[in-house]
């Protein structure tokens, strides 16, 4: 039982490593092994979460040495929830990729799934590792797999991938420099140990420089407002199958890392933390407005979703900037919910492109008649983005708003309201195009015998719809798991 934190990450890794060798034997053997490993890792992450909830955070030391001398995985309530969400999204996206398979060439089949499996393993590791340098290597694996997935998305994807490669490496080097300075000043790489030494005080300047480098590095990776240059083009041209994973989850993991650094390593009582959070607050404020305004004028659905995901990252950062425990819980709920909403909407864009070959909003004719499941997912995703009660969007806004008012930062409440209204503008434009437009008679590229889409696409979509509403109704148990962790943290 205590091996779960390691097995959750190792299994997809071994699956990816073996998939190419197994594909030589039979074309689908590699793919099935990867499905098996992802499913196993998802079940283990659920059991691990249950274990964490029942009897406290789990620690796993690689190599069996004492704590500061070996690499350590630390899964607490927040980490457990994030890991199981990433595992679920990875499993669903792997299913979704079946539709995009090229059956002819053996390398293409095995390789595609092994890249997705590496991508999921990287993100799982980043979310559960508690060692600064280990996170860097996991970030590199995620980034490399992401470059490949974006590059597979066609010719424009190549340029987007190259641009993201350059920007991503600069960000990774900044992160490495930050970790270097922290190591130079504290002597350890383990986050737990590092925070103990930093709290002994006396090293404020070096920690400030390291914090700035970390924020710069992780900000670029997660397309926070001023560093978001690479994101719209990357999300628009990425590979249809795994778009949901990249836009939905990968963009958020660095923000989760930043959250762990700010709250569990540096702590709120650190001298310069107030000024840093104010600056971050300014970035978040502009980011929320900018993303929505740019998204209004788009006609390409994926570009629209890319710009709206800049807003969503700023929502997640909002919780961190506000600092109240309730706001943190709200932003975590938003993190989980938005992964499924954003992922779901990208599934829809991929499905429409798969069936009709177009993602230009203007010719979404009678989509709701021909593709009812996709239309329902678009509507529920849109409602959740705007924050209509039964969906999860409303409840995360609720908690963030309470946090904002408790700490007296009314400006963020106003920003929250304005940005959800801006969201409403372009999402209802999308709904209008899907429901109200008269038929554009687009011919059906890949006719499917029964139903609108192959089952491998329908299952992920229905799961996304279910999670959006279930998280909405049953958010209280999730919040109760997470809130005690934030108690000691708030302002």
């Amino acid at each position: 039982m205590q091996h779960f934190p390691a097995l959750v990450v190792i299994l997809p890794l071994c699956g990816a490593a073996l998939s190419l060798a197994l594909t030589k034997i039979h074309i689908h053997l590699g793919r099935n092994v990867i499905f098996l490993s992802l499913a196993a890792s998802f079940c283990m992450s659920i059991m691990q979460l249950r274990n964490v909830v029942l009897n406290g955070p789990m620690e796993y030391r690689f190599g069996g040495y004492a704590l500061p001398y070996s690499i350590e995985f630390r899964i607490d309530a927040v980490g457990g929830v994030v890991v199981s969400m990433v595992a679920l999204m990875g499993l669903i996206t792997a299913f979704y990729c079946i539709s995009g398979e090229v059956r002819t060439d053996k390398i293409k089949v095995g390789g595609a799934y092994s890249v997705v499996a590496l991508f999921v393993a990287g993100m799982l590791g980043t979310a559960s590792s508690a060692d600064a340098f280990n996170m860097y290597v996991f970030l590199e694996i995620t980034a490399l797999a992401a470059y490949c997935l974006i590059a597979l998305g066609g010719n424009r994807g190549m340029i987007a991938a190259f641009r993201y490669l350059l920007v991503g490496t600069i960000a990774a080097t900044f992160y490495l420099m930050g970790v270097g300075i922290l190591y130079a000043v504290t002597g350890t790489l383990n986050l737990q140990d590092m925070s103990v030494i930093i709290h002994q005080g006396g090293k404020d300047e070096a920690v400030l420089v390291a914090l700035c480098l970390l924020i710069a590095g992780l900000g670029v990776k997660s397309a926070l407002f001023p560093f978001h240059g690479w994101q719209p083009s990357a999300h628009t041209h990425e590979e249809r199958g795994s778009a949901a994973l990249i836009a939905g989850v990968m963009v958020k993991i660095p923000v989760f890392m930043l959250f762990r650094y700010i709250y569990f390593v540096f702590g709120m009582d650190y001298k310069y933390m107030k000024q840093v959070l104010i600056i971050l607050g300014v970035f978040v404020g502009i980011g929320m407005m900018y993303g929505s305004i740019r998204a209004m004028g788009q006609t390409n659905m994926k570009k629209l979703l890319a710009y709206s995901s800049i807003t969503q990252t700023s929502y997640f950062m909002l919780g961190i900037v506000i600092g109240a425990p309730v706001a943190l819980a709200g932003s975590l709920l938003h993190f989980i919910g938005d992964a499924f909403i954003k992922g779901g909407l990208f599934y829809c864009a991929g499905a429409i492109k798969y069936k009709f070959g177009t993602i230009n909003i203007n010719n979404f004719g009678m989509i709701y008649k021909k593709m009812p499941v996709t239309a329902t997912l678009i509507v529920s995703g849109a409602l959740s983005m705007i924050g209509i009660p039964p969906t999860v969007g409303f409840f995360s806004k609720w908690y963030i708003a309470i946090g904002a008012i408790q700490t007296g930062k009314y400006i963020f409440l106003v920003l929250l309201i304005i940005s959800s209204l801006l969201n409403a503008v372009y999402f209802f434009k999308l709904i209008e195009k899907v429901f109200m437009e008269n038929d554009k008679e687009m011919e059906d590229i890949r006719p499917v015998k029964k139903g609108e889409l192959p089952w491998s696409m329908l299952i992920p979509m229905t799961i996304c719809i279910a999670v959006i509403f279930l998280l909405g109704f049953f958010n209280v148990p999730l919040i109760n798991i997470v809130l005690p962790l934030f108690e000691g943290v708030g302002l």
Partner: protein
Amino acid sequence: MTGIEQFLADKGIYFLTFFLLSLGIYGIITCKNYMKKLIGMNIMQVSAIIFFLSLGQKKGATIPVLLEGLTNSDAYNNPLTHALMLTAIVVSLGTTGVGLALLTRIKEKFGSVEEEEIIRRQDKL
């Protein structure tokens, strides 16, 4: 000599390393040719490696391979930074490999590796 050495030890080496890092980034941003951007990226990663190794230096210490007589820890350089930097070098090779593969496909598809021509032809496709 010790005066310069003391200055170098405190600020000089760090200043040069960060200068090399910013030069790498400057190269990535200003050079128009994608190949040069990749080389700039490599230089940036080498500068990160130099920074880590300079952290791990000790005055008058030998290479981190154990000798019979010497047991106290001040006699050897810091092995942890060396182990970390092996990973960083391998990562830089991986990134360069992927970058070059992308470069080949871009050259094949867009006919050139210069940024302006690619942007001009990008809208045509």
